[in-house]
C-alpha cells in the first residue's frame, strides 16, 4: 500500500536524533511490547509479511507520532483482535481508555499464489526497470524506485514473496536481486558519485 511507512525520499523531516549508544530497551514496556508481539505471532501463526502489514496499516498520524515499540504494540493488539484472541472492547476496558488499532486490510486475499519461480530472469549487469504499480496490500517494493531503471549487482537466491505471504496462507518463492540506481536517476537533482541499492523480488521487475 502507498502508506506512511514507505518513507524513502520523503522531504520535510529534520535532523536525525542520533545517539552513539543506547540500551536495547529504554523502558521496560518496550521489552514487554516486543515479547507480546512474539506471543501473538506464535499463537496465530502470523507471517513476516502480515506482521509488517499490520504496522503499515496504522493511522498515519499515529504512526509518525509513536515510537517503534508502540508500533509493535499496535500490531500485536491489531493481530490479536483480527485473529479472534481478544476483542477491541476488552482491550479498551482493561486499558481504561482508547486503544487505537490499525486500519483494515485494503487488499483482497490472494486466491492463487501462483507457481514458484526458480530461475532468475536477470543476471548481474542486466538493466532492469521496476514496475510502476500501486498494490493496495503489503509490498517490499519501495515507492521511490517504481518506474525507475537500475542495474542488477547481485543475485541472492529465492525467497517467499511478502506480497503473497501477507494475504494468503499459500507461498510463492521468487529470486531476489540487489539493484543499483544512480541517485541522480532517482531524484533528478544532479547528485554525483552516489548510488542507492534496493533488494527486489523478481515480479517487481521488468527488462529495460
Amino acid at each position: 500500500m502507498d502508506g506512511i511507512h514507505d518513507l524513502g525520499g520523503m522531504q520535510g523531516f529534520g535532523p536525525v536524533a542520533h545517539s552513539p549508544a543506547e540500551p536495547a530497551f529504554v523502558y521496560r514496556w518496550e521489552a514487554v511490547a516486543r515479547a507480546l508481539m512474539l506471543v501473538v505471532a506464535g499463537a496465530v501463526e502470523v507471517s513476516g509479511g502480515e506482521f509488517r502489514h499490520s504496522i503499515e496499516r496504522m493511522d498515519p498520524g499515529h504512526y509518525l507520532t509513536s515510537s517503534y515499540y508502540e508500533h509493535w504494540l499496535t500490531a500485536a493488539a491489531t493481530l490479536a483482535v483480527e485473529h479472534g484472541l481478544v476483542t477491541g472492547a476488552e482491550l479498551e476496558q482493561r486499558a481504561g481508555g482508547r486503544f487505537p488499532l490499525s486500519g483494515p486490510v485494503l487488499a483482497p486475499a490472494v486466491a492463487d499464489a501462483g507457481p514458484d519461480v526458480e530461475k532468475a530472469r536477470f543476471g548481474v549487469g542486466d538493466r532492469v526497470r521496476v514496475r510502476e504499480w500501486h498494490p493496495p496490500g503489503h509490498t517490499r517494493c519501495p515507492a521511490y524506485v517504481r518506474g525507475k531503471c537500475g542495474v542488477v549487482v547481485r543475485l541472492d537466491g529465492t525467497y517467499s514473496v511478502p506480497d503473497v505471504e501477507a494475504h494468503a496462507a499459500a507461498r510463492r518463492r521468487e529470486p531476489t536481486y540487489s539493484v543499483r540506481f544512480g541517485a541522480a536517476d532517482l531524484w533528478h537533482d544532479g547528485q554525483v558519485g552516489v548510488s542507492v541499492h534496493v533488494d527486489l523480488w523478481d515480479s517487481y521487475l521488468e527488462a529495460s
Partner: protein
Amino acid sequence: MSKEGHHPAPLSPVEQRVAALEAVLTERGLVPEGFIEEISRRYESEIGPMNGAKVVARAWADPGYKQRLLGDGTAAIAELGFGGAEGDHMVVVENTAAVHNVIVCTLCSCYPWPVLGLPPAWYKDPPYRARMVREPRVLLAEMGCRLPGEVEIRVWDSSAEVRYLVLPQRPPGTEGMTQTQLAELVTRDSMIGVARL
C-alpha cells in the same frame, strides 16, 4: 522508581495499553512464565555491536578471513559463532579510501541483529529512513561523517531478506594491535556506515 511506602508513578497511556494486552493474553494462557524477562535478557546481553566488532577485527587481522567474509558473509560470521534471526543472509560491504557504504531500511527497521543487536531508535525513525536514500552525502555530513567529494557513496536499502554489515577501513597506526584491541576501536556507527574510524 517509587520508594517503598509511596504510590507507584501512574502509568502512561502506552504503558496502560501494554499492561492491558499483557493481562488479557496472560489470562488466555498464552504468555509462558518468564518469557518477557527472557526476551529482555537475550537482547540486552547476548547480542550487540560487540559481536560485529569481533568480525571486523578478525577481517582486519586475517586476510583469508576477510576474503571469506566478503564472499559469503553468513558463513564467515558463523565461524565466529554468530547467526540466527535477521542474520541468516548476510552481505558485508567494504569501505575503502574511494568507496563509502551505508545501510538503511526505508520501509521499516531491518538490521543485522546477530552482529549489531537491535537497531537504535534513530535508525528506525522517519528522518533517517526518509533522508539517507535521498541526500546521503548531506545527511552523513550532518551526522559528523564528512566525506571528500571524490568518495563514492553506496547506500544499501535492506528491503528484502539480505541484511548488511559495513566493513570499515582499518585505522592507520594500528599495525601492532591484537584482535581484542582492534575490536575495541570498532563502533556500531562505523558498521552501519554513518561514521568512519
